[in-house]
């Protein structure tokens, strides 16, 4: 990949990829590390699709795989330091102004948060997310609905 290509990719996608990672992991601290890893992988990546239409899904796939790796590493680590991890994650949640929303979102599976981000924030259709996640369109739809139903529980009794 040429430097110019990398810079173009970074300029266009860095913000979206950063937010996707932030939603997926729900932790700013972890997102910083994974974001760096993702862009190094992108720079090294020889499997970047030649078709421009395939670049966006490829980038999100690289980001998702890096997030899943991070979660696997975290799981090994937090077995030893579970209590610390919970407190630490609370401190490093994204925007404190949206604190309660992030607390609600943190109850979802990381992959489900990723789907919510892609659908509601990045504007991906269920079909597009399905091709990215290797799921059927209906599966993604069900997951989106289930996540939303799960979040609904936090709004019971509110005016």
């Amino acid at each position, binding site marked *: 990949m040429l430097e110019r290509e990398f810079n173009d990719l970074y300029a266009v996608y*860095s913000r979206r990829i950063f*937010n996707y990672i932030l939603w997926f992991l729900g932790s700013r601290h972890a997102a910083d590390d994974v974001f*760096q890893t993702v*862009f*190094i992988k992108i720079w090294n990546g020889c499997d970047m699709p030649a078709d421009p239409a395939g670049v966006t899904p490829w980038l999100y796939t690289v980001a998702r795989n890096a997030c899943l790796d991070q979660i696997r590493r975290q799981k090994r680590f937090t077995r030893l330091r579970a209590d610390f991890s919970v407190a630490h994650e609370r401190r490093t949640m994204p925007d404190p102004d*949206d604190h309660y929303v992030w607390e609600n979102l943190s109850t979802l599976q990381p992959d489900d948060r990723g789907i919510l981000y892609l659908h*509601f924030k990045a504007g991906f259709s269920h079909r597009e997310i399905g091709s990215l996640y290797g799921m059927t369109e209906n599966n993604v739809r069900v997951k989106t609905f289930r996540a939303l*139903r799960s*979040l609904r529980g936090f709004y019971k009794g509110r005016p």
Partner: protein
Amino acid sequence: MMETIADTTHPDENELVALALGEPAQALASHCAECPACARFVKELRMARRDIDAVEEEDVPRRLGEKVRARHVSLMRGPLLAFWGRFAEWWRSPVVIAVALILFVLFAYILFVFVL
């Protein structure tokens, strides 16, 4: 308020989610107008959706962007210049700048008082 809407007289929950997400469903909308449980269900889903929409997307922190670019440059240049890239990044740290300033003032003081 029931936990789930399982009663056969109520529509399927997924249909209500679809309604809450703005998918057209005239019959469901009419049902919700007459059924407080379903109306409440849809309202709570819409509150969740509204909060998701309200979460602002964040810019990549400037320092993180600089780190990525520095690592990228170092990968392009090879190991020798990579070291310089890391050094340049380290050197820009506010703590290092503060320590350097303190050392400079201390050195100037010693030079002025004891040597000159």
